[in-house]
């Protein structure tokens, strides 16, 4: 079966690395650094402006670029291409520079070699975002960026390989999951070439012929061995494998989005999806977190918070917010996935535990979860896509230079009512994807009654999609775009 897929890959894929100009640029040895430098400069400007610039979020580069442009561009690139943000990640520029002088010798602790720690950080970031109103706080946004830089630097200065990316970075985990729906993946062009390969440079790194212990080009730092790699999970698109392969046999190939969620083979560096409870949990947080994050931007959340505050007789936001998070990210998923898994088990011919059943089918929620993230982030991005212009003009003017002119505050973006149609479209596509994936999983797992197994998971997807549509129809808060409310 694997061979069949691989041969199909070889025959039909578009390879971005073989495109004129773009391919040449991406294959250039210093391409990654070249792409990271501008983002690093922008990140530094955001930090400085966040710490020392205007306190009003819509007028500050830190908040505007982070919460409108970065997030929006991130999901758009994931939708149209793949995990190219990790390729251009500015945090890694500083880390790579440090690695020239610091050579860590320790391995990340074995008990932490999973996604549980990064899931916790992912939830913490979502929580802090709401608690500190990060979208409205340039100061805290700047410190968040600083913490990412510091985290990458410290972790990867102590531990070998790409420990920060694989086991720590919350943005990375988001990208890994979302990229399973992307149309491109880093993959082998011809598996016959790999069969003949004896050096395995894509994972071991290319060595100097005269000194076999000296690595002149590192291999995959995330332990993804190209011939056994399946899909985009844990792949940062760093292209080290492309540089290391002596046969020029690795490309960025087009593929069918979300198909990798259906298959359950042994994946290099990842293992078998259905046995990775931590990855399933990450997917669940990804999907339900999308709904929570979107819900938190609409007006009814304030009513809910006020009622909960009255109910608990508290005057601070922390316990109320903690309750909402526990409700959305623990109680709701446990209940809904538990019910779906219980029904599945009762109609299935397979003897699986509830947790194993839920873990297997949870991956079907990825397309819908991504659709909700996409709807949410694209709303801010498209309605405020031009806001970086006046904010940058104002920032330059604050430095006493008129070189870019007076701020043109009238530049905003697309009409919210148009963008709302896009939001509906993204969620509908996500729902379709989740239905397709859950049916495919059911039909793969159940040869006798796949439809019966499919029904509870379809119902779960429909329920979440209905909740997402409801959120979209609520009065939106224009966070960070112009008025920074909420």
């Amino acid at each position, binding site marked *: 079966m694997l061979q069949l897929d691989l041969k199909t890959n070889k025959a039909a894929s578009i390879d971005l690395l073989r495109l004129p100009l773009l391919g040449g640029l991406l294959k250039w040895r210093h391409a990654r650094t070249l792409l990271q430098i501008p983002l690093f400069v922008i990140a530094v400007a955001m930090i400085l402006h966040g710490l020392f610039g205007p306190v009003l979020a819509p007028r500050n580069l830190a908040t505007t670029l982070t919460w409108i442009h970065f997030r929006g561009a991130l999901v758009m690139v994931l939708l149209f291409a793949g995990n190219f943000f990790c390729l251009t990640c500015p945090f890694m520029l500083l880390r790579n520079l440090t690695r020239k002088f610091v050579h860590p010798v320790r391995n990340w602790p074995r008990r932490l070699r999973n996604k549980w720690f990064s899931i916790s950080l992912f939830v913490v970031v979502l929580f802090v975002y709401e608690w500190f109103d990060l979208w*409205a706080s340039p100061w805290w946004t700047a410190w968040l960026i600083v913490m990412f830089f510091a985290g990458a630097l410290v972790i990867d200065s102590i531990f070998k390989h790409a420990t920060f990316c694989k086991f720590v970075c919350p943005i990375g985990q988001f990208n890994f999951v979302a990229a399973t729906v992307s149309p491109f993946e880093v993959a082998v062009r011809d598996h016959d070439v790999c069969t003949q390969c004896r050096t395995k440079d894509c994972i071991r790194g290319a060595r100097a012929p005269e000194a076999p212990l000296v690595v002149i080009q590192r291999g995959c730092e995330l332990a993804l061995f190209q011939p056994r790699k399946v899909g985009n999970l844990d792949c940062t698109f760093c292209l080290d494998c492309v540089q290391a392969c002596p046969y020029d046999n690795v490309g960025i190939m*087009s593929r069918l989005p979300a198909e990798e969620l259906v298959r359950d083979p042994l994946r290099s560096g990842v293992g078998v999806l259905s046995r990775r409870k931590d990855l399933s949990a990450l997917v669940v947080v990804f999907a339900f977190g999308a709904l929570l994050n979107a819900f938190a931007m609409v007006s009814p959340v304030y009513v809910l918070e006020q009622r909960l505050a009255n109910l608990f007789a508290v005057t601070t936001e922390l316990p109320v917010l903690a309750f909402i998070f526990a409700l959305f990210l623990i109680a709701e998923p446990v209940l809904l996935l538990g019910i779906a898994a219980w029904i599945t088990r009762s109609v299935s011919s397979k003897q699986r535990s509830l947790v194993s059943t839920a873990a297997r089918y949870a991956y079907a929620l990825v397309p819908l979860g991504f659709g909700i993230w996409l709807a949410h982030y694209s709303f801010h991005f498209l309605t405020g896509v031009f806001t970086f212009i006046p904010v940058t003009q104002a920032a330059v003017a604050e430095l006493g230079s008129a070189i870019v002119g007076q701020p043109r505050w009238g530049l905003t973006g697309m009409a919210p009512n148009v963008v709302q149609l896009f939001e509906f*479209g993204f969620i509908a*596509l996500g729902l379709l994807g989740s239905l*397709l994936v859950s049916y495919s999983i059911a039909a793969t797992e159940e040869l006798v009654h796949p439809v019966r197994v499919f029904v509870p998971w379809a119902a779960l997807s429909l329920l979440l999609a209905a909740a997402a549509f409801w959120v979209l129809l609520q009065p939106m808060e224009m966070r960070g775009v112009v008025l920074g409310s909420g």
Partner: protein
Amino acid sequence: MMRLRHASLIHTLLVVLIFVSTTRAHEGPPYPLFVDQFVGSYSVSVWTDPDVGDALFYVILSEQHQPLPLDLRVQIGVQPVSGRLPEAFYPAERENLPKQVQYKAQVHFDAAEHWRVRVRLESASGNAETTATVAATPPGYGRWDLLVYLVPFLAVGIVWGVAMVRRFRQRTGDKHA
């Protein structure tokens, strides 16, 4: 080749989808009429979403030398520049937002034309006001527009669905045969 065709089609449709909307008239989210203008002892920014029908105005205030008075009331007055209607005032409601004092008013524009907008700030410690002009714009998109905008998503969904089903059959054909 199936995969190649599907991928190309999906990409083309989505790219078209993104750019087609930029050819439409500008409506946009709220935009500023003016920013940080000194009005009396206040620094005032006014943002608006001036749709014909119900239009929104946001008045963001910050104190210059002293805290904002507790009894501060904000009103928005609108009148066609042509003078065909008398000036109508609408009260703005204070919104409790973190780190920001903001008032929101919903006013009525009955036609797409230029309107004079008066922002009036009243309190026991003194009144102040300023004016600006805004062009009211059509509110938006009807059923046909809805269909036009959603068709590309529908097309992408169909292509994706067909591709997934075919791939699934290709992969599991042996098992289900």
